Protein backbone atom coordinates (compact mmCIF):
# COMPACT_ATOMS: atom_id res chain seq x y z
CA UNK A 1 0.00 0.00 0.00
CA UNK A 2 2.57 2.53 1.02
CA UNK A 3 4.09 4.24 -1.97
CA UNK A 4 7.31 4.76 -0.05
CA UNK A 5 7.89 1.10 0.72
CA UNK A 6 6.36 -0.24 -2.50
CA UNK A 7 8.56 1.78 -4.85
CA UNK A 8 11.61 1.86 -2.57
CA UNK A 9 12.40 5.16 -4.25
CA UNK A 10 12.56 8.54 -2.61
CA UNK A 11 9.12 10.13 -2.22
CA UNK A 12 9.27 13.32 -4.29
CA UNK A 13 5.65 14.38 -4.41
CA UNK A 14 4.57 17.40 -2.36
CA UNK A 15 4.63 16.95 1.39
CA UNK A 16 2.50 18.98 3.78
CA UNK A 17 3.92 22.22 5.10
CA UNK A 18 3.33 21.80 8.79
CA UNK A 19 1.90 24.50 10.99
CA UNK A 20 2.38 24.38 14.77
CA UNK A 21 -1.34 24.11 15.47
CA UNK A 22 -1.81 21.03 13.29
CA UNK A 23 0.77 18.91 15.11
CA UNK A 24 -1.79 16.65 16.86
CA UNK A 25 -3.38 15.76 13.51
CA UNK A 26 -0.13 14.67 11.87
CA UNK A 27 1.07 12.84 14.98
CA UNK A 28 -2.19 10.90 15.04
CA UNK A 29 -1.97 10.10 11.32
CA UNK A 30 1.49 8.70 11.92
CA UNK A 31 -0.06 6.38 14.57
CA UNK A 32 -2.71 5.49 11.96
CA UNK A 33 -5.41 7.34 13.79
CA UNK A 34 -7.75 9.77 12.06
CA UNK A 35 -8.73 12.60 14.36
CA UNK A 36 -10.73 15.77 13.76
CA UNK A 37 -10.72 19.06 15.65
CA UNK A 38 -13.92 20.15 17.40
CA UNK A 39 -14.90 23.36 19.13
CA UNK A 40 -15.63 22.66 22.79
CA UNK A 41 -17.92 25.71 22.84
CA UNK A 42 -20.20 24.84 19.96
CA UNK A 43 -19.52 21.10 19.73
CA UNK A 44 -18.95 21.47 16.01
CA UNK A 45 -16.23 19.70 14.06
CA UNK A 46 -14.22 21.72 11.61
CA UNK A 47 -11.59 21.04 9.00
CA UNK A 48 -8.84 21.95 8.10
CA UNK A 49 -7.40 22.27 11.63
CA UNK A 50 -6.89 25.81 12.95
CA UNK A 51 -5.63 27.25 16.24
CA UNK A 52 -8.97 28.98 16.86
CA UNK A 53 -12.37 27.64 15.95
CA UNK A 54 -13.44 29.20 12.61
CA UNK A 55 -16.97 29.40 14.03
CA UNK A 56 -18.36 32.58 15.52
CA UNK A 57 -17.18 31.39 18.95
CA UNK A 58 -13.52 31.99 17.94
CA UNK A 59 -12.52 29.73 20.77
CA UNK A 60 -9.03 28.39 21.46
CA UNK A 61 -10.72 25.61 23.38
CA UNK A 62 -10.43 22.81 20.86
CA UNK A 63 -10.52 19.08 21.40
CA UNK A 64 -9.30 16.40 19.05
CA UNK A 65 -11.78 13.59 18.57
CA UNK A 66 -11.14 10.19 17.01
CA UNK A 67 -13.24 10.14 13.84
CA UNK A 68 -15.27 7.22 12.55
CA UNK A 69 -13.14 7.02 9.43
CA UNK A 70 -16.26 6.78 7.30
CA UNK A 71 -17.05 9.23 4.52
CA UNK A 72 -18.90 9.72 1.25
CA UNK A 73 -17.42 11.05 -1.99
CA UNK A 74 -18.85 14.56 -2.52
CA UNK A 75 -16.98 15.18 -5.76
CA UNK A 76 -13.83 13.97 -7.47
CA UNK A 77 -11.50 14.72 -10.36
CA UNK A 78 -9.35 12.14 -12.12
CA UNK A 79 -6.01 13.86 -12.49
CA UNK A 80 -4.16 12.97 -15.67
CA UNK A 81 -1.55 15.62 -14.95
CA UNK A 82 0.06 16.18 -11.58
CA UNK A 83 1.25 19.45 -10.09
CA UNK A 84 4.99 18.70 -10.03
CA UNK A 85 7.55 16.82 -12.18
CA UNK A 86 7.36 13.93 -9.66
CA UNK A 87 4.01 12.94 -11.22
CA UNK A 88 5.44 12.47 -14.69
CA UNK A 89 4.68 9.00 -16.10
CA UNK A 90 2.38 8.26 -13.15
CA UNK A 91 -1.01 6.69 -13.83
CA UNK A 92 -4.10 8.88 -13.44
CA UNK A 93 -5.13 9.35 -9.81
CA UNK A 94 -8.27 10.44 -8.05
CA UNK A 95 -8.37 13.63 -6.00
CA UNK A 96 -11.66 13.79 -4.12
CA UNK A 97 -13.54 15.97 -1.71
CA UNK A 98 -15.17 13.62 0.77
CA UNK A 99 -17.74 14.40 3.42
CA UNK A 100 -16.88 12.63 6.65
CA UNK A 101 -19.54 11.06 8.86
CA UNK A 102 -18.70 13.88 11.30
CA UNK A 103 -19.89 16.42 8.69
CA UNK A 104 -16.61 18.01 7.68
CA UNK A 105 -15.21 17.92 4.18
CA UNK A 106 -11.64 17.06 3.33
CA UNK A 107 -9.45 16.73 0.28
CA UNK A 108 -8.02 13.27 -0.19
CA UNK A 109 -7.16 10.54 -2.69
CA UNK A 110 -9.45 7.62 -3.38
CA UNK A 111 -7.20 4.57 -3.60
CA UNK A 112 -7.67 0.82 -3.84
CA UNK A 113 -9.88 0.88 -6.92
CA UNK A 114 -9.83 1.80 -10.59
CA UNK A 115 -10.41 5.57 -10.92
CA UNK A 116 -13.34 4.75 -13.24
CA UNK A 117 -15.14 3.04 -10.35
CA UNK A 118 -15.29 6.20 -8.25
CA UNK A 119 -18.76 7.78 -8.06
CA UNK A 120 -20.27 10.72 -6.23
CA UNK A 121 -22.06 9.45 -3.12
CA UNK A 122 -19.86 6.37 -2.87
CA UNK A 123 -19.14 5.14 0.68
CA UNK A 124 -15.45 5.17 1.52
CA UNK A 125 -13.33 4.42 4.57
CA UNK A 126 -10.04 5.72 5.85
CA UNK A 127 -6.71 4.18 4.95
CA UNK A 128 -3.28 5.41 5.99
CA UNK A 129 -0.46 5.94 3.51
CA UNK A 130 2.99 6.22 5.13
CA UNK A 131 4.55 8.23 2.32
CA UNK A 132 7.75 8.96 4.28
CA UNK A 133 8.94 7.88 7.74
CA UNK A 134 7.72 11.28 9.02
CA UNK A 135 4.50 11.76 7.06
CA UNK A 136 1.36 9.67 6.82
CA UNK A 137 -1.39 10.89 4.51
CA UNK A 138 -5.01 10.10 5.33
CA UNK A 139 -6.61 8.60 2.23
CA UNK A 140 -9.84 6.73 1.55
CA UNK A 141 -10.80 3.50 -0.22
CA UNK A 142 -14.17 2.05 -1.20
CA UNK A 143 -15.96 0.76 1.91
CA UNK A 144 -15.19 -2.88 2.68
CA UNK A 145 -12.82 -3.25 -0.24
Amino acid sequence: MSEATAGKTKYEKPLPEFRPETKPYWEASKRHEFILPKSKTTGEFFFYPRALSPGDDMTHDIEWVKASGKAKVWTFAIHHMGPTPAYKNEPAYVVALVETAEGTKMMTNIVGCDPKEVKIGMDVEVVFDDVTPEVTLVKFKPMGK
Partner: protein
Amino acid sequence: MATSIPRVEDTRNALKKHKIVIAGVGETEQGKVPNKSSFQFLSEASKLAIQDAGIQKTDVDGLVTAFSLVEHTFMHCTTFADYFGMRPRYFSSIAIGGATAIWMAAEAAMAIISGQADVVLCVRGDNTLSGISSSGMVALIREMCHAEFEFPYGLTTPGGYALAAQRYLYEYGLKREHLAAVAVTMRKHAGMKENAMNREPLAIEDVIKSRVIADPLTKYDCSIISDGGAAFIVTTEEKAKQLGVKKPLAYLWGMGQGYSHQYLTTLKDLNQIYTAVETSGQKAMKTAGITTKDVDMAFLYDCFTITVLLEIEGLGLVPKGEGGPFALEGRMEIGKDMPVNTHGGLLSQAHLGGMHHVVEATLQLRGEAGPRQVKDAEVALVHGNGGIVSAHSTIVLGQQPLS
Protein backbone atom coordinates in the same frame (compact mmCIF):
# COMPACT_ATOMS: atom_id res chain seq x y z
CA MET B 1 -31.53 39.39 -0.99
CA ALA B 2 -32.25 42.91 -2.21
CA THR B 3 -33.27 44.37 1.12
CA SER B 4 -30.28 42.85 2.88
CA ILE B 5 -27.66 44.63 0.79
CA PRO B 6 -26.23 47.40 2.93
CA ARG B 7 -25.70 50.95 1.70
CA VAL B 8 -26.66 50.47 -1.93
CA GLU B 9 -28.16 53.97 -2.00
CA ASP B 10 -24.93 55.54 -0.73
CA THR B 11 -22.91 53.94 -3.52
CA ARG B 12 -25.57 54.82 -6.07
CA ASN B 13 -25.65 58.46 -5.01
CA ALA B 14 -21.86 58.67 -5.10
CA LEU B 15 -21.69 57.20 -8.61
CA LYS B 16 -24.50 59.49 -9.79
CA LYS B 17 -22.87 62.54 -8.32
CA HIS B 18 -19.34 61.88 -9.58
CA LYS B 19 -20.25 60.22 -12.90
CA ILE B 20 -17.30 57.82 -12.90
CA VAL B 21 -16.23 56.82 -16.41
CA ILE B 22 -13.78 54.69 -18.32
CA ALA B 23 -12.22 57.25 -20.65
CA GLY B 24 -9.59 55.21 -22.44
CA VAL B 25 -8.53 51.63 -23.05
CA GLY B 26 -5.41 49.96 -24.38
CA GLU B 27 -4.42 46.45 -25.40
CA THR B 28 -0.98 45.36 -26.55
CA GLU B 29 -0.44 42.37 -28.81
CA GLN B 30 -1.38 39.13 -27.05
CA GLY B 31 -0.23 35.55 -27.25
CA LYS B 32 3.32 34.32 -27.49
CA VAL B 33 5.39 37.50 -27.44
CA PRO B 34 8.93 36.67 -26.35
CA ASN B 35 11.61 39.20 -25.47
CA LYS B 36 9.30 41.58 -23.64
CA SER B 37 9.38 41.97 -19.89
CA SER B 38 6.39 42.19 -17.62
CA PHE B 39 6.98 45.89 -16.99
CA GLN B 40 7.35 46.56 -20.73
CA PHE B 41 3.86 45.14 -21.28
CA LEU B 42 2.52 47.28 -18.44
CA SER B 43 4.15 50.38 -19.92
CA GLU B 44 2.96 49.73 -23.47
CA ALA B 45 -0.60 49.08 -22.34
CA SER B 46 -0.56 52.25 -20.22
CA LYS B 47 0.73 54.33 -23.12
CA LEU B 48 -2.00 52.95 -25.40
CA ALA B 49 -4.75 53.73 -22.87
CA ILE B 50 -3.44 57.25 -22.28
CA GLN B 51 -3.27 57.84 -26.04
CA ASP B 52 -6.72 56.33 -26.55
CA ALA B 53 -8.14 58.80 -24.02
CA GLY B 54 -6.21 61.58 -25.74
CA ILE B 55 -4.76 62.83 -22.47
CA GLN B 56 -1.20 63.41 -21.26
CA LYS B 57 0.75 61.12 -18.99
CA THR B 58 1.00 64.04 -16.56
CA ASP B 59 -2.80 64.11 -16.29
CA VAL B 60 -2.71 60.71 -14.58
CA ASP B 61 -2.51 61.06 -10.80
CA GLY B 62 -3.66 57.62 -9.63
CA LEU B 63 -2.36 54.14 -10.29
CA VAL B 64 -3.93 50.75 -9.66
CA THR B 65 -2.01 47.64 -10.63
CA ALA B 66 -2.28 43.97 -9.72
CA PHE B 67 0.60 41.53 -9.40
CA SER B 68 2.93 39.58 -11.64
CA LEU B 69 3.48 35.87 -11.94
CA VAL B 70 6.95 36.54 -13.28
CA GLU B 71 8.28 39.68 -11.54
CA HIS B 72 7.92 39.09 -7.85
CA THR B 73 7.58 42.26 -5.87
CA PHE B 74 5.77 43.10 -2.66
CA MET B 75 4.99 46.61 -3.92
CA HIS B 76 3.83 46.08 -7.46
CA CYS B 77 2.14 49.45 -8.04
CA THR B 78 5.07 51.56 -6.92
CA THR B 79 7.58 49.32 -8.68
CA PHE B 80 5.68 49.99 -11.88
CA ALA B 81 5.37 53.71 -11.10
CA ASP B 82 9.15 53.80 -10.89
CA TYR B 83 9.60 51.92 -14.19
CA PHE B 84 6.99 53.98 -16.03
CA GLY B 85 8.26 57.24 -14.57
CA MET B 86 5.29 58.65 -12.69
CA ARG B 87 4.60 59.90 -9.18
CA PRO B 88 0.94 59.17 -8.50
CA ARG B 89 -1.02 60.78 -5.66
CA TYR B 90 -2.82 57.50 -5.14
CA PHE B 91 -1.44 54.00 -5.68
CA SER B 92 -2.58 50.51 -4.86
CA SER B 93 -1.91 46.91 -5.92
CA ILE B 94 -4.85 44.55 -5.86
CA ALA B 95 -4.26 40.84 -5.36
CA ILE B 96 -7.58 39.02 -5.41
CA GLY B 97 -6.72 36.72 -8.30
CA GLY B 98 -9.24 36.77 -11.13
CA ALA B 99 -11.47 39.21 -9.26
CA THR B 100 -8.70 41.81 -9.52
CA ALA B 101 -9.20 43.36 -12.97
CA ILE B 102 -12.89 44.06 -12.46
CA TRP B 103 -12.25 45.45 -8.99
CA MET B 104 -9.59 47.83 -10.32
CA ALA B 105 -12.39 49.91 -11.83
CA ALA B 106 -14.22 49.93 -8.49
CA GLU B 107 -11.12 50.81 -6.51
CA ALA B 108 -10.27 53.62 -8.92
CA ALA B 109 -13.83 54.93 -8.49
CA MET B 110 -13.53 54.83 -4.70
CA ALA B 111 -10.20 56.66 -4.85
CA ILE B 112 -11.75 59.37 -7.02
CA ILE B 113 -14.93 59.69 -4.95
CA SER B 114 -12.89 60.08 -1.77
CA GLY B 115 -10.70 62.76 -3.35
CA GLN B 116 -7.48 60.73 -3.53
CA ALA B 117 -7.08 61.07 -7.30
CA ASP B 118 -8.80 62.42 -10.42
CA VAL B 119 -7.45 60.27 -13.24
CA VAL B 120 -6.55 56.69 -12.37
CA LEU B 121 -4.57 54.38 -14.62
CA CYS B 122 -5.56 50.74 -14.11
CA VAL B 123 -3.09 48.41 -15.74
CA ARG B 124 -2.05 44.83 -15.85
CA GLY B 125 0.47 43.02 -18.00
CA ASP B 126 2.70 40.03 -17.79
CA ASN B 127 4.94 37.80 -19.86
CA THR B 128 3.34 34.77 -18.27
CA LEU B 129 3.75 32.46 -21.27
CA SER B 130 7.33 33.36 -22.15
CA GLY B 131 8.66 34.36 -18.77
CA ILE B 132 7.33 32.00 -16.13
CA SER B 133 9.81 29.48 -14.74
CA SER B 134 8.90 25.85 -14.09
CA SER B 135 9.14 26.51 -10.36
CA GLY B 136 6.98 29.57 -10.90
CA MET B 137 4.40 27.37 -12.59
CA VAL B 138 4.43 24.89 -9.69
CA ALA B 139 4.04 27.82 -7.29
CA LEU B 140 1.09 29.07 -9.32
CA ILE B 141 -0.55 25.64 -9.32
CA ARG B 142 -0.01 25.37 -5.59
CA GLU B 143 -1.29 28.84 -4.85
CA MET B 144 -4.90 27.75 -5.25
CA CYS B 145 -4.49 24.71 -2.99
CA HIS B 146 -4.03 24.48 0.75
CA ALA B 147 -0.31 23.75 1.20
CA GLU B 148 -0.88 21.40 4.11
CA PHE B 149 -4.24 19.72 3.53
CA GLU B 150 -4.81 19.78 -0.24
CA PHE B 151 -1.57 20.01 -2.18
CA PRO B 152 -0.07 16.76 -0.79
CA TYR B 153 -2.91 14.89 -2.51
CA GLY B 154 -1.70 16.16 -5.88
CA LEU B 155 -4.54 18.64 -6.38
CA THR B 156 -3.89 21.00 -9.30
CA THR B 157 -5.63 24.23 -10.24
CA PRO B 158 -7.48 22.62 -13.18
CA GLY B 159 -8.23 19.74 -10.80
CA GLY B 160 -9.92 22.13 -8.39
CA TYR B 161 -12.20 23.39 -11.14
CA ALA B 162 -12.77 19.80 -12.25
CA LEU B 163 -14.04 19.04 -8.74
CA ALA B 164 -16.55 21.87 -9.07
CA ALA B 165 -17.46 20.78 -12.61
CA GLN B 166 -18.02 17.14 -11.62
CA ARG B 167 -20.38 18.16 -8.83
CA TYR B 168 -22.21 20.62 -11.12
CA LEU B 169 -22.79 17.97 -13.80
CA TYR B 170 -23.95 15.51 -11.14
CA GLU B 171 -26.42 17.86 -9.47
CA TYR B 172 -28.12 18.87 -12.70
CA GLY B 173 -27.73 15.65 -14.66
CA LEU B 174 -25.75 17.46 -17.35
CA LYS B 175 -23.11 16.14 -19.71
CA ARG B 176 -19.61 16.83 -20.81
CA GLU B 177 -20.77 18.71 -23.92
CA HIS B 178 -22.50 21.32 -21.78
CA LEU B 179 -19.09 22.44 -20.54
CA ALA B 180 -17.50 22.08 -23.98
CA ALA B 181 -20.11 24.38 -25.52
CA VAL B 182 -18.70 27.31 -23.53
CA ALA B 183 -15.25 26.78 -25.06
CA VAL B 184 -16.80 26.53 -28.53
CA THR B 185 -18.64 29.85 -28.15
CA MET B 186 -15.54 31.61 -26.82
CA ARG B 187 -13.54 30.36 -29.79
CA LYS B 188 -16.20 31.54 -32.22
CA HIS B 189 -15.97 35.03 -30.72
CA ALA B 190 -12.15 34.98 -30.68
CA GLY B 191 -12.25 34.35 -34.43
CA MET B 192 -13.52 37.92 -34.78
CA LYS B 193 -10.95 39.49 -32.44
CA GLU B 194 -7.72 40.49 -34.21
CA ASN B 195 -5.33 39.99 -31.29
CA ALA B 196 -6.83 36.71 -30.05
CA MET B 197 -4.30 33.95 -29.53
CA ASN B 198 -6.53 31.09 -30.70
CA ARG B 199 -8.87 31.90 -33.58
CA GLU B 200 -9.35 28.69 -35.55
CA PRO B 201 -12.85 27.21 -35.14
CA LEU B 202 -13.44 24.59 -32.46
CA ALA B 203 -16.19 21.95 -32.34
CA ILE B 204 -17.74 20.25 -29.31
CA GLU B 205 -16.01 17.01 -30.36
CA ASP B 206 -12.63 18.76 -30.51
CA VAL B 207 -13.03 19.86 -26.89
CA ILE B 208 -14.18 16.46 -25.64
CA LYS B 209 -11.44 14.60 -27.52
CA SER B 210 -8.62 16.92 -26.53
CA ARG B 211 -6.11 15.84 -23.91
CA VAL B 212 -7.64 15.03 -20.54
CA ILE B 213 -6.20 17.32 -17.89
CA ALA B 214 -8.39 16.56 -14.89
CA ASP B 215 -11.46 14.53 -15.80
CA PRO B 216 -14.08 15.87 -16.58
CA LEU B 217 -11.99 18.78 -17.91
CA THR B 218 -9.83 18.58 -21.02
CA LYS B 219 -7.31 20.95 -22.56
CA TYR B 220 -9.90 23.20 -24.20
CA ASP B 221 -11.89 23.59 -20.98
CA CYS B 222 -8.84 25.36 -19.61
CA SER B 223 -7.89 28.95 -20.36
CA ILE B 224 -4.75 29.73 -22.29
CA ILE B 225 -1.56 31.20 -20.89
CA SER B 226 -0.36 34.25 -22.77
CA ASP B 227 1.88 37.30 -22.83
CA GLY B 228 0.42 40.77 -23.09
CA GLY B 229 -0.83 43.91 -21.41
CA ALA B 230 -4.06 45.86 -21.09
CA ALA B 231 -5.07 49.08 -19.38
CA PHE B 232 -7.96 51.45 -18.83
CA ILE B 233 -8.28 54.99 -17.55
CA VAL B 234 -10.89 55.79 -14.90
CA THR B 235 -11.93 59.37 -14.20
CA THR B 236 -15.08 61.49 -13.92
CA GLU B 237 -17.20 62.74 -16.79
CA GLU B 238 -16.37 66.30 -15.79
CA LYS B 239 -12.62 65.69 -15.72
CA ALA B 240 -12.74 63.78 -19.01
CA LYS B 241 -14.49 66.73 -20.67
CA GLN B 242 -12.04 69.15 -19.12
CA LEU B 243 -9.13 67.11 -20.50
CA GLY B 244 -10.74 67.01 -23.94
CA VAL B 245 -11.38 63.26 -24.10
CA LYS B 246 -12.98 62.65 -27.51
CA LYS B 247 -13.83 58.96 -27.18
CA PRO B 248 -17.32 58.02 -26.01
CA LEU B 249 -17.32 57.41 -22.27
CA ALA B 250 -18.41 54.20 -20.55
CA TYR B 251 -20.12 54.95 -17.23
CA LEU B 252 -19.67 52.94 -14.04
CA TRP B 253 -23.16 52.16 -12.75
CA GLY B 254 -22.44 49.76 -9.93
CA MET B 255 -19.97 47.49 -8.20
CA GLY B 256 -19.97 44.69 -5.68
CA GLN B 257 -18.05 41.80 -4.20
CA GLY B 258 -18.95 38.39 -2.83
CA TYR B 259 -16.88 35.76 -1.06
CA SER B 260 -17.41 32.03 -0.73
CA HIS B 261 -14.28 30.20 0.42
CA GLN B 262 -10.58 30.13 -0.31
CA TYR B 263 -10.06 26.37 -0.22
CA LEU B 264 -12.52 23.86 -1.62
CA THR B 265 -12.11 21.90 1.63
CA THR B 266 -14.24 24.50 3.40
CA LEU B 267 -16.91 24.69 0.69
CA LYS B 268 -20.25 23.53 2.05
CA ASP B 269 -22.10 23.09 -1.23
CA LEU B 270 -22.52 24.63 -4.70
CA ASN B 271 -25.05 27.06 -3.27
CA GLN B 272 -22.29 28.70 -1.31
CA ILE B 273 -20.62 29.61 -4.61
CA TYR B 274 -23.91 30.78 -6.16
CA THR B 275 -24.57 32.96 -3.12
CA ALA B 276 -21.17 34.64 -3.42
CA VAL B 277 -21.74 35.33 -7.13
CA GLU B 278 -25.26 36.57 -6.41
CA THR B 279 -24.12 38.83 -3.55
CA SER B 280 -21.52 40.40 -5.82
CA GLY B 281 -23.87 40.73 -8.78
CA GLN B 282 -26.86 41.97 -6.81
CA LYS B 283 -24.85 44.69 -5.10
CA ALA B 284 -23.64 45.89 -8.50
CA MET B 285 -27.04 45.63 -10.19
CA LYS B 286 -29.04 47.18 -7.33
CA THR B 287 -26.57 50.06 -7.24
CA ALA B 288 -27.04 50.45 -10.99
CA GLY B 289 -30.81 50.32 -10.51
CA ILE B 290 -31.15 47.50 -13.01
CA THR B 291 -32.27 43.89 -13.10
CA THR B 292 -30.91 41.03 -15.19
CA LYS B 293 -33.47 41.95 -17.90
CA ASP B 294 -31.59 45.18 -18.55
CA VAL B 295 -28.25 43.47 -19.20
CA ASP B 296 -27.36 43.45 -22.91
CA MET B 297 -24.13 41.45 -22.66
CA ALA B 298 -22.07 39.72 -20.02
CA PHE B 299 -18.33 39.43 -19.56
CA LEU B 300 -17.76 36.48 -17.30
CA TYR B 301 -14.46 35.23 -15.94
CA ASP B 302 -13.75 32.10 -17.92
CA CYS B 303 -10.54 30.62 -16.62
CA PHE B 304 -12.31 27.27 -17.05
CA THR B 305 -15.57 26.47 -18.82
CA ILE B 306 -17.33 25.59 -15.55
CA THR B 307 -16.88 29.09 -14.11
CA VAL B 308 -18.99 30.65 -16.87
CA LEU B 309 -21.89 28.34 -16.02
CA LEU B 310 -21.67 28.95 -12.27
CA GLU B 311 -21.43 32.70 -12.84
CA ILE B 312 -24.23 33.10 -15.38
CA GLU B 313 -26.51 31.11 -13.05
CA GLY B 314 -25.33 32.80 -9.83
CA LEU B 315 -25.85 36.21 -11.40
CA GLY B 316 -29.41 35.18 -12.23
CA LEU B 317 -29.04 35.66 -15.99
CA VAL B 318 -30.06 32.02 -16.41
CA PRO B 319 -31.82 29.76 -13.85
CA LYS B 320 -29.66 27.35 -11.86
CA GLY B 321 -28.72 24.24 -13.79
CA GLU B 322 -29.71 25.80 -17.11
CA GLY B 323 -26.37 27.43 -17.95
CA GLY B 324 -25.13 24.24 -19.63
CA PRO B 325 -28.11 23.84 -21.97
CA PHE B 326 -28.05 27.63 -22.57
CA ALA B 327 -24.44 27.33 -23.78
CA LEU B 328 -25.13 24.22 -25.84
CA GLU B 329 -28.01 25.96 -27.62
CA GLY B 330 -25.60 28.71 -28.65
CA ARG B 331 -27.44 31.35 -26.66
CA MET B 332 -24.19 32.93 -25.39
CA GLU B 333 -23.22 33.91 -28.92
CA ILE B 334 -23.24 37.42 -30.36
CA GLY B 335 -26.71 38.12 -31.72
CA LYS B 336 -28.36 35.61 -29.40
CA ASP B 337 -30.04 35.86 -25.97
CA MET B 338 -27.06 36.89 -23.87
CA PRO B 339 -23.76 37.47 -25.66
CA VAL B 340 -20.92 36.37 -23.36
CA ASN B 341 -17.27 37.40 -23.75
CA THR B 342 -17.57 38.78 -27.25
CA HIS B 343 -13.76 39.00 -27.43
CA GLY B 344 -13.18 35.28 -26.85
CA GLY B 345 -12.33 35.46 -23.16
CA LEU B 346 -9.56 33.76 -21.28
CA LEU B 347 -10.38 30.52 -23.04
CA SER B 348 -9.45 31.77 -26.51
CA GLN B 349 -8.36 35.43 -26.67
CA ALA B 350 -5.75 35.87 -23.94
CA HIS B 351 -5.36 35.39 -20.21
CA LEU B 352 -4.76 38.65 -18.47
CA GLY B 353 -7.02 38.05 -15.52
CA GLY B 354 -10.12 39.68 -16.97
CA MET B 355 -8.54 42.98 -18.07
CA HIS B 356 -9.81 42.29 -21.56
CA HIS B 357 -13.30 41.72 -20.21
CA VAL B 358 -13.35 45.34 -19.02
CA VAL B 359 -11.70 46.62 -22.21
CA GLU B 360 -14.12 44.72 -24.46
CA ALA B 361 -17.16 45.87 -22.48
CA THR B 362 -15.96 49.44 -22.99
CA LEU B 363 -15.35 48.95 -26.72
CA GLN B 364 -18.84 47.45 -27.07
CA LEU B 365 -20.48 50.38 -25.27
CA ARG B 366 -18.50 52.77 -27.49
CA GLY B 367 -19.76 50.94 -30.56
CA GLU B 368 -16.18 50.13 -31.57
CA ALA B 369 -16.29 46.32 -31.49
CA GLY B 370 -16.35 45.97 -35.30
CA PRO B 371 -17.52 42.52 -36.44
CA ARG B 372 -18.22 41.59 -32.79
CA GLN B 373 -20.48 44.57 -32.15
CA VAL B 374 -23.55 43.71 -30.09
CA LYS B 375 -26.54 45.61 -31.49
CA ASP B 376 -27.89 48.33 -29.19
CA ALA B 377 -25.35 47.49 -26.49
CA GLU B 378 -26.18 49.83 -23.63
CA VAL B 379 -25.56 47.87 -20.44
CA ALA B 380 -22.69 45.47 -19.71
CA LEU B 381 -22.27 43.21 -16.71
CA VAL B 382 -18.64 42.30 -15.98
CA HIS B 383 -17.80 39.61 -13.43
CA GLY B 384 -14.50 38.26 -12.15
CA ASN B 385 -13.63 35.38 -9.88
CA GLY B 386 -10.45 34.68 -8.01
CA GLY B 387 -9.30 31.42 -6.46
CA ILE B 388 -11.38 28.40 -7.37
CA VAL B 389 -14.69 30.27 -7.79
CA SER B 390 -13.90 31.77 -4.38
CA ALA B 391 -13.72 35.55 -4.52
CA HIS B 392 -16.07 37.48 -6.78
CA SER B 393 -16.33 41.02 -8.10
CA THR B 394 -18.87 42.59 -10.43
CA ILE B 395 -19.26 45.91 -12.16
CA VAL B 396 -22.05 47.28 -14.32
CA LEU B 397 -21.07 49.63 -17.13
CA GLY B 398 -23.52 51.78 -19.07
CA GLN B 399 -23.40 53.76 -22.29
CA GLN B 400 -25.16 56.73 -20.66
CA PRO B 401 -24.69 58.42 -17.26
CA LEU B 402 -26.36 56.67 -14.34
CA SER B 403 -29.81 58.18 -13.85
